[in-house]
């Protein structure tokens, strides 16, 4: 994924004043409005240190302003490493990383889902594990003196996940 930033001037018509309430209704997004843009999150963010574009404060501001399309379509949204440094140090207790996770969930709802997540979800449904564990690894366990790898209960997992809206993004692949 490339690190590109939308630097087009912001138009008033782009702003959705209800967007912040949509976020605040979701688990982890409740405290979005507390942010007063101090910048602690960005200055302490290990990813921001090396990324040209990832700035958590900016993402939070975009969400507050209701720049819905701009923020949900932004590649940088997926750069957060979920280290929770911002969450722990925010003087306003915004739970910045959780707000960013809420935004990612909303992007996913719109169908913006990086391939890696689709692959992991498919793998979990089939085997219980997020990665396809190679047969060689499973066989090797015996020679390493490890007990057999627990087999996931695919049926049980599928049953539990019934009705989860994210699964619609996997349908095209025949799931």
């Amino acid at each position, binding site marked *: *994924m490339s*690190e590109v930033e939308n630097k087009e001037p912001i138009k008033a018509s782009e702003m959705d004043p209800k967007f912040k309430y949509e976020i605040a209704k*979701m*688990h*982890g997004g409740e405290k979005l409005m507390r942010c007063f843009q101090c910048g602690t999150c960005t200055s302490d963010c*290990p*990813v921001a*240190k*090396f*990324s040209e574009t990832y700035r958590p404060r900016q993402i939070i501001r975009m969400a507050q302003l209701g720049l819905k399309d701009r923020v949900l379509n932004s590649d940088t949204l*997926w*750069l*957060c*490493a*979920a*280290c*929770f*440094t911002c*969450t*722990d140090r925010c003087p306003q207790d915004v*739970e910045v*990383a959780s707000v960013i*996770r*809420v935004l*990612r*969930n909303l992007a*996913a709802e719109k169908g913006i889902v*990086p391939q*890696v*997540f689709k692959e*992991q*979800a498919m793998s*979990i449904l089939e085997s*219980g*594990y*997020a*990665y396809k*564990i190679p047969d060689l*690894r*499973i066989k*090797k*366990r015996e020679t*390493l*003196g*490890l007990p057999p*790898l*627990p*087999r*996931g*209960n695919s049926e*049980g*997992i599928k*049953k*539990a*996940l*019934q*009705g*989860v*809206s*994210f699964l619609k993004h996997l349908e095209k692949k025949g799931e």
Partner: protein
Amino acid sequence: MAKNQYLIFLGCAIPYRVSAYEISARKVLQKLGVELVEMPEFNCCGLPLDPVSHEMMLILAARNLALAEQKGLDIIALCPGCAGTLKKVNKMLKEDKALREEINKHLKESGLEFKGTVNAKHIMQVLIEDVGLEKIKDSVVKPLTMLKVAEHNGCHILRPKEYIGFDDPEDPQTLKTLIEATGATCLDYMDETECCGAPSVGVSDKVALQLARDKLNHVKQVSAEALITICPFCHIMYDTNELRIEKMFNETYGIPILHYPQLLGLAMGMSPEELAFNELRVDTSKIIKQVVEGEK
């Protein structure tokens, strides 16, 4: 509930590519009298899917917790990501009745129910809280006084503080204490609590590897002879990727990356072969030699 009996939660990364951690952890725990019970039905903790579906993460985590409740045993996880997720969801569902009811609707058809009757712990927490430092010190037969190492905790063992409630995320001491219990010296270095970058791999390898590089540079600056991790993802970032980072930035580190149970195992008198040192990418012969010669 027997205090020394746990369901072992391997998660996905460990069986996928970090077997040295599992091998050494099982050996060390057995020696300390911790009984591990296998649980065939576990699924991914849910964390990898939290970015795209918080709902899916909650259900997957709750399913694991409900399975453990059926067995009536606490969970020990080797991966801080799994431990953190299971802890966080355990707390959320215990405190939020509406959410608990919603998630239980998903579990009901498989005959499962989340009640909030078990705990999930990371191996480090089990070592310090349940096994206890004295017992660990007593198990050391070959103190590693010849070694100077550095530690890397990883984020999810500590953050977010509100949910994890273990150690101090700004100045963590547990891993240092556990390292010093082996007789080795644990060195301080710059930005010890910084993230390894693993979760950004696949989104931007460039950013992720720069985070790992920064850490390796800081560890090298204090002349640490090894970096000790307690997370499979952090270990992949530093061990599997160390050569890649060296090539990319035209630098050399040569810092062996050990799983904490490997270090403890050495101090318990186990051999590097038993502790799967051969599974590590970065050459460990120098520190093995130090340990062997130190014995004489």
